[in-house]
């Protein structure tokens, strides 16, 4: 599914690499937490998978393809097989919940019939049945993140990438989001989630990958947030 081979990434004008010689592999169907203190390179790791950045050295393989060999105009097609969720939801404030999810299908040119069918399905899956016509501003943060997950999942991607999806949520809503991601993972979708949330990681007991200043310092199945807490 995802393979990093000796990947390093140094941003322009930075002297310290954000990722330093990271190698790992994530299999189909796994649920993986990416932890590490702020600036340890978690977002960089995810951006490399999304090909928003390119590695300075090393190879990144996603869904069996070497991203270095992927030409620019093929990147959008690759991204359609990934779902992405962020801390700040990234919804369009002037579109309804349903339109926000449909937008993701419209801009990749899906036929209208398909859209009409799958949008309510996925909204029901994330627990927003009946809220199709609400505006994002009228929803709680937890509900907004559900919309974002629905949008990421509507295309039934093989891989769901989440960068601190509970970062803006209170503990109660966070638990709800984690249950949803777990449910999505059970459908066979690989989930890779960067987080700071100690309680969640400790409770879920999934594979934990820890970065520290760009170094891969831990890769533990059924792990907890950190040794020292």
């Amino acid at each position: 599914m995802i393979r990093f081979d000796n990947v390093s990434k140094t941003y322009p004008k930075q002297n310290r690499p954000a990722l330093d010689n990271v190698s790992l592999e994530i299999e189909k169907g796994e649920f993986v937490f990416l932890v590490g203190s702020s600036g340890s390179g978690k977002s960089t790791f995810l951006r490399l998978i999304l090909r928003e950045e390119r590695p300075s050295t090393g190879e990144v393989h996603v869904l069996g393809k070497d991203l270095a060999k992927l030409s620019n105009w093929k990147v959008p097609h690759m991204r359609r097989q990934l779902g992405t969720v962020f801390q700040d939801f990234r919804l369009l404030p002037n579109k309804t919940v349903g339109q926000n999810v449909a937008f993701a299908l419209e801009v990749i040119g899906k036929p209208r019939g398909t859209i009409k069918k799958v949008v309510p399905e996925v909204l029901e899956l994330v627990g927003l049945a009946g809220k199709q016509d609400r505006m994002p501003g009228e929803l709680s943060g937890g509900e907004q993140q559900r919309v974002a997950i629905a949008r990421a999942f509507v295309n039934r991607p093989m891989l769901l990438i989440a960068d601190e999806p509970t970062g803006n949520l209170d503990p109660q809503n966070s638990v709800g989001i984690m249950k949803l991601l777990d449910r999505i993972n059970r459908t066979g979708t690989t989930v890779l989630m960067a987080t700071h949330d100690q309680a969640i990681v400790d409770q879920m007991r999934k594979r934990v990958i820890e970065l520290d200043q760009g170094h891969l310092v831990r890769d533990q199945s059924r792990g907890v947030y950190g040794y020292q807490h």
Partner: protein
Amino acid sequence: MRAQFVMAEIWIGLRRNLTMTIAVIVSVALSLSLVGAAMLLNSQVNQMKGYWGDKVEVSIYFCNKNNQKNTKDTPNCASGEATQAQIDAVHGQLDKNPLVQKVYTETPDQAVVNFKKQFPDSPLAPYVTADSFNNSLRVKLTNPSLYQEVASQVEGQPGVAKVDDQSAVLKPLFNLMNTAQWVALAIMVIMFGVTLLLIVNTVRVSAFSRKRETGIMRLVGASNFYVQMPFIAEAAFAAVVGAVLASGMIAVGKYVLIDMVLRKQITLISFIGWGPVIQVMPLLVVIGVGMSSLAAVLTLQKYLKV
């Protein structure tokens, strides 16, 4: 489906920033109308050049009674009015010259008629009589710039008062028209530049203000086409509307300026008709759309990366 969605997005984009859209349309309209005006000025000048270019000829004036009194200006006329034999001799020489295309004669009576036709408003008109004019020959050359060779052959021959090159008289006029063409060209280039800058700026503002949408589009794997199309289409739409407005302004301008004002007052000049105006209009649309799409594409290269 795709098309309908794209249209809807463009419409939302245009409406969201209505003031902006109006601003772009207005500025494109203004710029293109100056571009169009410059083009029409060019047509006008070319038409005038053609009109007068046809008339360029060499005039050979023979002595008349008045010239005899006034030998300071016309020393060749001391022996009095030119005889018909002298006139015929010059005429014969010119007919043999290979540089000469055609020779017309003009008697003083014809000259009076021509003068009154050409300058009906001249304060001199009432006093112009056949006495004021001379017998003359009008010579059309195969190549007007070789005037000097013909002139030197004829000048100083008995009975010839003066050889006049009309092209010398028209030269300042042509220079003036050339200058007008350069000025028109300069205005056109300036307006092209201003329009381009305006559109680039506008697309930048548009791209800035829709960063969220484009970010999400790229996130979910929309192709570059889908991401950039709305901006390019917005710019092109504004350009089309602007060009149509500009066409209207040009048509009104031509009607008011040329048909209502100038044509009544300047009868000597032949003004352009509706033909060149109608030719300029589609050109403005093409220029507007081409320029704005190009500006949009180039701007987006920088502001919307994959």
